């Protein structure tokens, strides 16, 4: 934690040029997207395993808080993609470095130029969804879709007399272990490393140098760049379908249809399954390796570092398996 705090405060105090800020935003945007992706792969898998829960998940995506988050997510992906491209260009053509500051400006400009029409179209979907519905109905929607299901789970948990045993079990067996467990493990790891850093007092100061060539690190370095360039069209295409062309609200026809049939219709084509599979594997490996890189920056105690690295590997593999199983089995009965 000492070095994490030092890096944060000193990045704010050091008067670095534009590249320093691009790095901060790139890291935050990458981690933010990864957090979403973890949740997203879990809830998308419900369409195959727990279709009723999937309807709830999509309904939750349509609540105001998530609508705001959706705009932020799209901004994160667009900026991270363009900036990632810039990093890759100057990594493979270091002799062009004199243009990097200009390139960073172009990244911000391009992000802005892309986001303006995209946000306008997304806002249109939001407005469509809300217009014509009285306010009390809107609040009612939020109440019915979020408060009731979640409240129901909490009540079930504490009374031990679940209204719907299956949903309660699913909540306990899927959501808590996967989402909660992973986030808790990671938080605990970071906290632990901070404690170790504080105790050993060495954090942030130059330490001994390990000098062994790492093929793996080299391959992953290349993978981050190549996969980034492949994810770019895949993720932009996916977001275009989900946010611009159709919109999150049309996944279940504004609450009147079944989200599962939307997915079933798409997964009826093998091509879309392959597309989703490619995005699944590339984005998860890219994102979790990015997470590992971030862990390596801040966790210095060997045990903690190893623990966090394994947490990232296990988390990544588990999510790829869950996502792939969903893609293979498809939507039941559709």
């Amino acid at each position, binding site marked *: 934690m000492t*070095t994490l705090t030092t890096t944060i405060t*000193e*990045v704010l105090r050091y008067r670095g040029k534009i590249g320093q800020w691009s790095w901060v935003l790139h890291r935050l945007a990458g981690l933010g997207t990864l957090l979403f992706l973890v949740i997203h792969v879990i809830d998308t898998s419900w369409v195959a395993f727990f279709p009723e829960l999937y309807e709830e998940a999509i309904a939750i995506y349509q609540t105001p808080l998530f609508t705001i988050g959706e705009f932020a997510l799209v901004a994160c992906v667009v900026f991270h993609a363009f900036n990632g491209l810039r990093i890759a260009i100057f*990594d493979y053509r270091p*002799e062009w470095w004199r243009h990097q500051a200009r390139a960073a400006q172009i990244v911000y400009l391009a992000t802005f130029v892309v986001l303006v029409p995209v946000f306008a179209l997304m806002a249109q979907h939001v407005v469509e969804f809300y217009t014509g519905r009285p306010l009390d109905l809107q609040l009612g929607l939020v109440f019915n879709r979020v408060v009731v299901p979640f409240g129901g789970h909490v009540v079930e948990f504490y009374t031990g007399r679940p209204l719907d045993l299956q949903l309660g079990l699913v909540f306990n067996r899927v959501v808590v272990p996967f989402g909660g467990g992973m986030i808790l493990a990671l938080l605990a790891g970071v906290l632990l490393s901070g404690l170790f850093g504080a105790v050993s007092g060495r954090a*942030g100061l130059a330490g001994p*140098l390990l000098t062994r060539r790492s093929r793996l690190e080299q391959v992953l370095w290349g993978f981050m760049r190549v996969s980034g360039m492949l994810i770019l069209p895949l993720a932009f295409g996916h977001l275009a379908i989900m946010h611009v062309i159709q919109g999150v609200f049309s996944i279940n026809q504004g609450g009147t249809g079944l989200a599962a049939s939307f997915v079933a219709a798409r997964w009826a084509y093998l091509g879309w399954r392959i597309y989703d599979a490619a995005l699944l594997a590339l984005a998860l490996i890219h994102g979790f390796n990015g997470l590992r890189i971030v862990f*390596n*920056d801040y966790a210095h105690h060997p045990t903690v570092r190893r623990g966090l690295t394994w947490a990232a590997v296990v988390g990544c593999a588990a999510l790829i398996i869950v996502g792939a199983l969903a893609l293979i089995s498809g939507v039941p009965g559709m």
Partner: protein
Amino acid sequence: MKAHFRIRRFNPETNAKPYWQDFTLDNVAPADRVLELLHRIKWEQDGTLAFRRSCAHGVCGSDAMRINGRNMLACKVLVSSLAAEGAESVTIQVEPILGLPVIKDLIVDMEPFFAHYRAVMPYFVNNDPPPADGRERRQSPEERAIFDDSTKCILCAACTTSCPSFWANGSYVGPAAIVQAHRFIFDSRDQAAEQRLDILAAPDGVWRCRTIFNCTPACPREIEVTRAIGEVKLAIQMGAERMRARKMTRGGTE
């Protein structure tokens, strides 16, 4: 003009933590260098102020500090570059470079930095006997040109201690050591390039670099630091020989 100094002080014998102290100097000229003003503070106001300097002319690399938020050599920074034009006063904030243990005031322990420097074999390796005529090992001007830039390093640590990756993780070998390795990796007479690349291809070697570009503007010698790091990354992937050839054909082009 007047100069208002804000200096980060720390005396391990009396202070638990570093603190800021203010000093004011009169009769400061725009052409004064920050190092001279630090001397005036030390000589006229507070003899306990501790900082390193030796040559006072940007050659020895001993006085890298963070001045107004950026790493620089105190002996190379003119007051005029910190003040607005025609200003009556200037505010100058000075603190030690970050990521190395502070010994006292502006003096940091450079040993970890030099340990990383030594780790990259920063010396010429050639096991062939010298040429029969007893003269120098020959090299064409073009072969010399591809590592000219990285010969200029004075090991001031301004680049390494401007790097957020190094702040976060002091095991990262750091820009300066990579520049020093670059100087030999791209030298056609040297025979240990692959050994150096093995060292720099460790997890705490070049891969910790996130291409942030803080190091390049920090270098008082105007070395193309981030470029040198990038070239070493490519040399690891394609081999020193091929990377040298590539740099020979399109070296200086942008």
